[in-house]
């Protein structure tokens, strides 16, 4: 604990700004190979947090050497050249295994790469490792990983949040300047909040899902985790846009997502504070810090007032019908015949399905598959699935109404700070409730960000972020924008990040 400020851990990634790395490699000041080695060393050094499942060392070193060779020959390198990054292990990548943290895929070697990875690689970014997650991204704590539990960097007895827990821990501990995650119900924002990182969930369809292990296809999005909004925005800029391999992708903003040098001001911005997120379930420490953040936004010139979206609390029940329904369909492909775990002892075809799935799936995957089978089965479909999709319309309408009056909505990311390891594992429903404030953005397909609440120290010139802490644990502020407002949302988040 720093006695002067009361803040125990200043989160800093210890890397130059992502936008500067390639420039400094191009002019000979830095070498890609040194950056990749630094990243691999840090992964090794901080292995006790169990954030990483595997590294892609050999391939990463080869790619780095190629970039250094290009520079030597005087060739122009990509705008992310030599930037090491860490991908959640549900992104298909070359150079190692892609497991989704599941026993089903523990030996799986991807025959192709995710579009997001290919686009980053095309600009020279280098994937160095694969981060831990709740198996299949099912969870809010990373405790559902079939391999091991990732620890919170601020307190090892606590969870990092999930499902992109390994990615959040990796960036907060500086293992790489950015990481990739997926957010189906809050899986980027919740760990960002619990660990003190920036986590960005784009508008649905902005980043191709091709080559990412599918969870709930109608709400799955891909996004960056970083220690600054600027880094996250640059990564989004490179990954986003239409992709023939994912028919749900949308065009990117013609102006792109890189932040403007001048930055966006909060002056005159209309900000709605979501009333429903300040109920009795909100921890006092979180409430206080979010309240202070709102006051600072107001003091910076924004027009701030409370707004009610009464159907928002229904989003979680909607999600836990839609998500398992889509999970049960998406996980049907794991049948032990073409890839993934297979049951060698099976005697019949039927048994080869049932045993492979029984052995390869953990408890949470099984729960979701069976709930999905239930809500989609004949006679129940209308009562559950169709009803949920109709309540979804109601939630979308309320967002649209709110965005007629407000540019952005704000609230907490989570009602609590990081909880203890083991605290919620015996009650699956209590774990689901951790997503209560993040899930509505997925249901409506709108973009949302988690950023550490502004602290008196502000953002240091060395690009560290001061994680605002309640009981020595980080608290994330959530900012939600209308669909396709990603560019503006990142600008406003950057302005909030600069507040003291």
């Amino acid at each position: 604990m720093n006695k002067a400020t009361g803040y125990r851990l200043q989160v800093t990634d210890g890397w130059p700004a992502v936008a500067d790395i390639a420039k400094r490699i191009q002019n000979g000041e830095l070498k890609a190979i040194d950056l990749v080695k630094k990243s691999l060393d840090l992964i090794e050094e901080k292995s006790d947090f169990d954030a990483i499942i595997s590294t892609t060392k050999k391939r990463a070193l080869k790619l780095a050497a190629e970039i250094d060779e290009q520079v030597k020959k005087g060739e122009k390198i990509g705008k992310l050249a030599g930037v090491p990054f860490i991908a959640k292990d549900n992104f298909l990548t070359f150079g190692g295994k892609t497991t989704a943290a599941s026993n089903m895929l523990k030996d799986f070697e991807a025959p192709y790469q995710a579009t997001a990875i290919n686009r980053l690689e095309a600009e020279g970014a280098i994937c160095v490792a694969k981060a831990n997650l709740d198996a299949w991204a099912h969870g809010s704590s990373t405790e559902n990983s079939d391999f091991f539990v990732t620890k919170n960097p601020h307190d090892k007895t606590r969870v990092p949040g999930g499902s992109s827990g390994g990615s959040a821990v990796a960036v907060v501990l500086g293992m790489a300047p950015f990481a990739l995650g997926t957010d189906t119900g809050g899986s980027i924002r919740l760990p960002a909040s619990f660990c003190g990182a920036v986590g960005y969930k784009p508008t649905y369809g902005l980043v191709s899902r091709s080559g990412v292990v599918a969870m709930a296809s109608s709400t799955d999005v891909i996004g960056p985790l970083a220690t600054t909004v600027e880094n996250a925005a640059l990564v989004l800029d490179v990954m986003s846009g239409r992709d023939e391999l994912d028919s749900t992708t949308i065009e990117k903003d013609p102006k792109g997502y890189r932040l403007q040098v001048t930055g966006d001001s909060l002056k005159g911005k209309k900000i709605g504070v979501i009333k429903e997120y300040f109920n009795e379930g909100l921890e006092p420490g979180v409430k206080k810090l979010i309240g202070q953040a709102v006051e600072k936004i107001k003091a910076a010139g924004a027009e701030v007032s409370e707004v009610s979206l009464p159907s928002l609390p229904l989003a979680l029940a909607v999600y836990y019908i839609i998500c398992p329904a889509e999970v049960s369909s998406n996980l049907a492909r794991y049948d032990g015949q073409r890839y993934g775990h297979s049951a060698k002892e099976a005697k019949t075809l039927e048994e080869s399905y049932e045993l492979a799935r029984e052995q390869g799936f953990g408890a949470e995957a099984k729960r979701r598959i069976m709930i999905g089978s239930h809500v989609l089965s004949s006679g129940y479909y209308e009562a559950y699935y169709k009803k949920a999709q109709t309540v979804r319309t109601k939630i979308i309408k309320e967002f649209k109404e709110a965005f007629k009056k407000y540019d952005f909505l704000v609230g907490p990311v989570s009602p609590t700070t990081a909880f203890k390891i083991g605290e919620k594992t015996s009650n699956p429903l209590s774990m689901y409730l951790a997503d209560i404030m993040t899930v509505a953005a997925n249901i409506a397909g709108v973009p949302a960000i988690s950023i550490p609440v502004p602290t008196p120290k502000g953002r240091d010139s060395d690009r560290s972020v001061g994680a605002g802490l309640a009981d020595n644990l980080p608290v994330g502020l959530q900012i939600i924008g209308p669909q396709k407002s990603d560019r503006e949302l990142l600008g406003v988040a950057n302005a909030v990040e600069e507040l003291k």
Partner: protein
Amino acid sequence: MAKLTRDAVLKLAKLSRLKLTEEEIERFAVELSAILDYVETLNKVDTKGLEPTYQVTGLKNVMRRDEPIEYQAKPKELLKNAPAVEKNQFKVKRVL
């Protein structure tokens, strides 16, 4: 209200192609019932006049050119994770 019986759990396991253990059957009956109780709170929500939303950004019938594309992965790579392969094909247990 949504209390799942043992038979109901077994039926879901069958539909899901999962061979559950005895312990799992008991555990899931309790856990799945609690989850269903929770999501059934939606039954009380008035949705009169509203249509379901299946696609949030309003895309419809997105087509691509009806032509083969040069894809990253070759058949050999697509087969490399298979438990059994014969003559460049997946080998499975007899179907009939």
